[in-house]
């Protein structure tokens, strides 16, 4: 549906986008995930028409988008700041896009009423944006974006301005809405939890390039590059060389068990990644595992995070255990994991 083909954009010496290609399907909930300044917002602005790429093509259902001015694209953009018109009421804000299409007044009124109903703001139609809470403003922005029935809805950090509780509600709401209206959603976010919980597929961006496009579970369980392994979720990373067998040979710890995602020639630089919840805390007398001592225990209710200082490893090893942890600060432990639970990937360049 939306095809981004070899798009590049630089600002002076800074390369915001470097030959980015993506294909997003009809009705998909797609996320562009990356740290701030990685170029994802630039890509969004190019699709919306507020930025022009130096090279590349963008098509929507085969139609060239770049030749059209922003006000002639069948695309809605929900701004991070919401950009609600402060001098108009909620109803006027929502009606704005329909009025531009010169629809009959009766139809506008009806559609505005319907969409305000959908986002649960019927009672607030005559208020000004300044009289609404953050969550309500977000709903108005959303209503204003979807009322035009765009083929594509772009959302720039849609939940970042909300506090945690409201954010969880809105996440569910966004998902419900997306399946209800059947519009293709492309959301830009730096929050990987948000991307994971919302999106069908995620493209991970880093310094202007797409590192990996995958479904959330694959991205989490089978990161293809060190950047993705580190950026998406918490991970413990060990470097070494590919052993040819299951695992890597580390200078400090010898053989570490893991599963290579692709065929790796022995001796090649490689990285092993293992998720905190896949690591087992064992007694210090256990036969297998890396010896260390507990640095800190944080209790989060359902899970506890234990960080273990392993001599020879720069960062503490993070271990997640169910419920309350049985260890305390200073306890001598061993950390270990199964080969199938750790991922080995090549380190390029």
């Amino acid at each position, binding site marked *: 549906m939306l095809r981004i083909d070899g798009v590049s954009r630089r600002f002076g010496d800074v390369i915001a986008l470097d030959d980015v290609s993506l294909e997003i399907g009809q009705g998909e909930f797609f996320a562009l995930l990356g740290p701030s300044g990685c170029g994802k917002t630039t890509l969004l602005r190019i699709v919306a028409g507020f930025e022009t790429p130096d090279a590349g093509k963008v098509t929507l259902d085969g139609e060239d988008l770049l030749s059209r001015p922003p*006000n002639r694209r069948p695309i809605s953009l929900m701004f991070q700041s919401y*950009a609600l018109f402060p001098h108009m009421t909620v109803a006027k804000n929502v009606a704005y896009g329909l009025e531009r299409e010169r629809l009959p007044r009766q139809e506008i009124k009806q559609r505005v009423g319907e969409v305000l109903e959908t986002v649960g703001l019927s009672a607030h139609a005559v208020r000004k944006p300044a009289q609404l809470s953050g969550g309500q403003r977000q709903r108005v922005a959303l209503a204003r974006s979807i009322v035009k029935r765009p083929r594509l809805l772009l959302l720039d950090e849609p939940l970042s301005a909300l506090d945690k509780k409201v954010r969880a509600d809105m996440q569910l709401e966004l998902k419900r809405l997306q399946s209800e209206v059947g519009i293709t959603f492309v959301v830009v976010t730096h929050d990987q939890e948000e991307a994971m919980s919302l999106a069908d597929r995620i493209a991970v961006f880093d310094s202007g390039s797409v590192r990996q496009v995958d479904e959330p579970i694959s991205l989490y369980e089978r990161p293809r590059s060190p950047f993705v392994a580190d950026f998406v979720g918490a991970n413990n990373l060990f470097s070494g060389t590919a052993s040819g067998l299951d695992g890597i040979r580390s200078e400090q710890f010898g053989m570490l068990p893991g599963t290579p995602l692709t065929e790796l020639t022995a001796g090649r630089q490689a990285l092993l990644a293992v998720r905190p919840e896949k690591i087992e805390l064992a007694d210090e007398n256990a036969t297998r595992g890396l010896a260390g001592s507990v640095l800190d225990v944080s209790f989060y209710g359902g899970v506890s995070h234990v960080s273990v200082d392993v001599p020879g490893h720069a960062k503490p090893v993070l271990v997640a255990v169910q419920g309350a942890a049985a260890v305390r600060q200073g306890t001598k432990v061993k950390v270990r994991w199964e080969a199938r639970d750790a991922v080995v990937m090549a380190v390029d360049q």
Partner: protein
Amino acid sequence: MKSEVKARPVNRSRGRRLGAFVFLSPGLAYLVVFMLVPLALLLSTTVFRRGRFGGVVYEFTAENFERLVDPLYLGVLVDSLKIATLTTLIALLIGYPTAYVIARLPRKWKTIALVAIVLPFWTNFLIRVYAWIMLLSGPGLVNSALKVFGLGPLEVLYTEGAIVTGLLYSYLPLMVLPLYAAIDRLDPQLREASSNLGASAFTTFRKVTLPLTMPGVLTGSLFVFVPSFGNFVIPEMLGGSKSIMVGNLIRDQFLKARDWPFGATLALALIVVLVVLLVAQSWVARRA
């Protein structure tokens, strides 16, 4: 216990009020002594008779106000209103695009442009008005330039057009600055949102930019209108003997005709017009 807890905020607010009074009193005293008191004295003379050789005779009379509605003087008031309104409108038409462009310049150029706008203020006001006489006069720069293109000569000097030109030149910066402040404050994403929702550039301006910068439009208009309406230097120097504005009339009543009570009555009329406009402006601004 309870009363102690309650007493605190009261004390603090009293202290704050005292502090505000201390900070405000120098300015307040200055305004009262040098503006409010003289103004009250002056306006009180409107109900008295003029002295034979100037000054005031303290006998009640309404004749000053009767004279005010004389078509001769009403005409001057209307003319002044017309000239000030025209000046304000042209200043708005020139000032809005100027302010709009400046607000969208890169930061460095913004500063340079704003300094350039204020730069004329660094030269003496009278010198600048004299310069306009040189420019507009018969063999002046404007006409010699027109001659090159085979046009002219224009008889501009000593007409209402010259007055408007002079007022416009003098007070245009007062239009540009508040407009710039209003436009610069506007979130550029609002324009993008409008465009994203299908609005053309013109519709975006009409529906979003203009309404949201209306307070700036009103402030700028007031800043230009007020000094234009009561001005007497520019009409005197550029308007010649034919045109007279209410400012000249007031000055003449005090200095030439020596009719203080009627001069004060005219001044009162001028003040009333301006206060009405000021109230209207703040009312509109609050609704916007």
